[in-house]
């Protein structure tokens, strides 16, 4: 599925920092159409911060992030708004708006960006809810459902506008192994059926190997990327001991 010369998202010389505090520097990688791109690395290495940069929530200290060749941070505001409509994000906690029902949560982006009638919006909402396996829960509030269901509802909202590219921030965090596996399957299914590009921030090895087709590995000590590519290739061919230790759950590292 992944076409090597068809970059959807290009990151070039990206440096991320909070004020004077450097998070990561010199990140350069491409995310191709149809990729399931994994952003991995140990806790605190800046994975989620990278995601916040990619989706336009945080301005880079240096470098460019381009969607289809259009540099996000150099684009005028209305262009940025258009780009952001093509992005869907599932936040770590689901980030559903707690004062609204699940259906209202999913409907909001549709009300904002589409000329659809109320009835059509309701139909789209019901479709998205069914796709994530939450048919019948339209009128529940986020506080009334479980964490796994909240994530799936968040996914329904992220998919509301049929985005070209879907971002997942630690999708399996806090889920039991079965729910996590189901979510992985759902991600694969969505990629294959919708043809979206998927970017996943995770450190779940099972997910990384099961769904990842490309990746970048961030290192908290040198504060930059030390590897990239298909995670299965990295497992077999990457010589870097940190990458090996990570992908093999530290087995090589703690018992050299």
């Amino acid at each position: 599925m992944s076409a090597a010369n068809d970059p959807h998202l290009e990151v070039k010389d990206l440096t991320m920092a909070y004020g004077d505090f450097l998070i990561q520097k010199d990140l350069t990688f491409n995310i191709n159409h149809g990729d399931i791109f994994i952003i991995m690395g140990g806790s605190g290495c800046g994975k989620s911060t990278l995601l916040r940069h990619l989706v336009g929530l945080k301005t880079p200290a240096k470098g460019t992030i381009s969607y289809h060749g259009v540099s996000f941070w150099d684009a005028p505001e209305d262009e940025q708004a258009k780009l952001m409509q093509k992005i869907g994000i599932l936040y770590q906690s689901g980030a559903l708006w707690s004062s609204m029902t699940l259906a209202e949560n999913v409907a909001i982006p549709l009300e904002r960006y589409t000329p659809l009638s109320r009835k059509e919006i309701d139909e789209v909402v019901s479709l998205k809810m069914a796709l994530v396996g939450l048919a019948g829960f339209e009128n529940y509030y986020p506080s009334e459902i479980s964490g796994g269901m909240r994530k799936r509802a968040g996914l329904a909202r992220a998919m509301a506008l049929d985005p070209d590219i879907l971002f997942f921030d630690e999708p399996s965090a806090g889920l039991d192994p079965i729910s996590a596996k189901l979510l992985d399957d759902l991600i694969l299914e969505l990629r294959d059926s919708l043809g979206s590009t998927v970017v996943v921030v995770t450190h779940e090895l099972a997910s990384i190997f099961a769904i990842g087709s490309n990746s970048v590995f961030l290192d908290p000590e040198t504060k930059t990327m030390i590897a990239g590519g298909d995670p299965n290739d990295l497992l077999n061919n990457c010589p870097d001991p940190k990458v090996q230790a990570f992908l093999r759950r530290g087995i090589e590292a703690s018992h050299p």
Partner: protein
Amino acid sequence: MDDRSQAVAFLSEFAKQAGATRVTVRDGGIEAWDSALLTFLRSLGAITRERGETLDLSGLPEGARRLLTLADAVPERKGARRTASTKSWLTRVGERSLKGFEDFGSSIHFLGELTQAFVAMLRGKAKYRKSDLFAIIQECGPEALPIISLISLLVGMILAFLGAVQLRMFGAEIFIADGVAVGMVRVMGPLMTAIIMAGRTGAAFAARLGTMQVNEEVDALQTMGFSPMEFLVLPRALALILMMPLLTIYANIVGILGGAIIGILMLDLTPAQYYLQTIGAINLQAVLSGLMNASVFGVLVAISGCMQGIRCGRSASAVGEATTAAVVNAIVYIVVANAIIAVIQTVTGF
């Protein structure tokens, strides 16, 4: 010095005197041990290492040896240790001052953004949910009535009591009605309502928006192209600005009623007397000036609550700090604004 460090000092001194190069610890058949043993051995280990002596722990229970090995397994990360804050007094004053300027700048920025949102609303371009606006109006209007009733009634009664003691000496009890009416309408009505709303609604705004910040709900809004200012802050500010004058009118009436209760029950005034005296004491100008105060206070409570909420950090303690700051700032703003308005009114005679 406690027992343990005394023991360490004694042992190391003893080893030094004896010219030993090797210190051996044996357990002497102990059956139970806890962290006290481990901390003792770690201190001993540090000293022997420093002197280049060898510490032989092979005579210890296996569990203790393994835990000590585990504690030393991951070397301390270089540069990670942080000494407890030793910043000088001057540095701290400087940092606080810089932070103060920064906060002031960000408040001005917030005000600017809010004004833009209001302009967008007037032009019909602001994106917020009408249903949210009505829910917030319900929350900070009608639902505040019980507490406003209680406080205003008591404030009215207190004003009457205070006046009664003084005025009775002159046989001028009837003027209680004037005192209560003017006091409530011009000052106490708007002020008490504003303080109640700061504690009740300002805090709720800060906590609500702060929690939304922690839950990434604000991020989700932004990435979907909604301005948090229009979607979250605007309806809250609007609701409070609309509700504050109405709540104040209500507080005035209840306060005057409280005064009347004292006047009628304790000072033997008749209801008609009290009513006529009250009507004579207040005029439209007094009421309007009170309501103007109320509107200003509404804006201040809304701004400080929403600003703290939106600027909240991403932790539970940050939400607590935001809520505290929202209430404290709102009350300070209200009192300062009240003083400024009082001066302006005195000078202009309004």
